[in-house]
């Protein structure tokens, strides 16, 4: 078997570690080392280095982290287990952000600001003009992404006709993409349905109603739908809005 210094170099690692290799190959390499002073020195140095590193590894093999570290980490683990999960914390923050966003939108769009002190009359009068023009909403609910595209004619509509739909909350006629948004459930003033063209049940504007708000990635509310108490248990209802 032909053996030269270059070939020997490629086998050096296996030779120094006594790694398994063909007996014929090993024999040829060792014979070469006997006859070549440079390769013999290389092999001896490599074996020495390997042994020295093994000695260091042996010296350090019983090194352990201090016991106090385990105690610290366990207490951190317990503390972490007691805290609400990150998901729930972010949902809580999202709910708060949604409530604030809806509140700001209601204040900005509320006809009371422009008209006199008779809100109910003004709201009802403004109903057709306040209907949003866009109703394309992307929602993410329970980890599933789905895009619901619903085109609705503007104009007169009843509570029943918007049963399953979100109503877009456009700002100044502009519409921004939702992106990877999410839906959160919030409480809004009972007068809020009137601002998107829906009747107020019983004409009473005191108290709050439950609503689902679509938040964009930027935290701005994009769309809203109002839910009844029975929908809170998993089913949409069209007719009336819950008063809380």
């Amino acid at each position, binding site marked *: 078997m032909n053996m030269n210094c270059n070939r020997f170099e490629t086998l050096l690692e296996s030779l120094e570690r006594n790694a398994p290799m063909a007996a014929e190959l090993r024999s040829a390499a060792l014979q070469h080392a006997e006859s070549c002073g440079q390769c013999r020195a290389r092999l001896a140095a*490599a074996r020495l280095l390997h042994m020295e*590193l093994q*000695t*260091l*590894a042996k010296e350090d093999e019983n*090194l*352990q*982290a201090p016991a106090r570290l385990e105690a610290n*980490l366990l207490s951190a683990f317990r503390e*972490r287990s007691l805290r609400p999960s990150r998901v729930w914390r972010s949902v809580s923050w999202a709910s708060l952000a949604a409530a604030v966003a809806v509140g700001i939108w209601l204040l900005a769009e509320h006809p009371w600001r422009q008209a006199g002190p008779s809100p109910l009359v003004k709201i009802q009068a403004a109903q057709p003009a306040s209907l949003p023009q866009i109703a394309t909403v992307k929602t993410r609910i329970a980890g599933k992404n789905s895009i619901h595209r619903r085109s609705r004619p503007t104009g007169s509509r009843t509570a029943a006709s918007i049963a399953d739909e979100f109503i877009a909350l456009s700002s100044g006629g502009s519409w921004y993409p939702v992106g990877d948004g999410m839906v959160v459930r919030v409480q809004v003033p009972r007068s809020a349905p009137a601002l998107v063209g829906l009747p107020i049940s019983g004409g009473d504007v005191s108290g709050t109603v439950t609503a689902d708000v679509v938040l964009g990635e930027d935290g701005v509310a994009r769309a809203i739908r109002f839910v009844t108490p029975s929908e809170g248990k998993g089913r949409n209802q069209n007719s009336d809005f819950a008063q809380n």
Partner: protein
Amino acid sequence: MHIEPNDGDLLRRMAAGDEAAFTTLYKRHQGGIYRFARQMTGGASLAEEVTQEVFLTLMREGRSFNASRGSLRAWLYGVARNCTLRCLQRERPYVAFETEGGEENAAELVVGSCVPEDGLAGLGSRETVEQVRRAVLALPASYREVVVICELHELGYAEAAQILGCPVGTVRSRLYRARELLALRLETLRARPARTVAAAKPCHR
């Protein structure tokens, strides 16, 4: 017959809040992680800091571990490696290189090796071990980590590649170069009187 739960099972239980599972994972891996950090930094306090950060990361991000991309051990070593490099960067302005011409000596290294007369005889002595430790710590970090992982911890090239996030070929070539540097460095250290060698300091390059 008692069967030890595997890392994946323990990780799932830990994510569900099982403290015993976390403790088992910690006991199983802390030694290797601590040793790795200590051999990389040369300091007990930095090694402790790194170990703590690794297991806090496990608590925070253990759910994101993907077993199809490698072992939990490799993942933990990878986190330890990143923490260690950050620590070394942070400490850089405050850690001096070897005194008494340490850097000069590094440049003086002569190509070519020879085994000292007392090389094997002295093997295993405290001084020899400390010389090797100093030589490892003096390697640039990219070579040191591959020596620590492959030589001192005896992990395979494939696992080392997962830890370092590079191809196996890169691990091999770095190890080859690192061993050359190490051999030369050790020659120099052996040639110097022990008293002139300063305390081991990690190389931050």
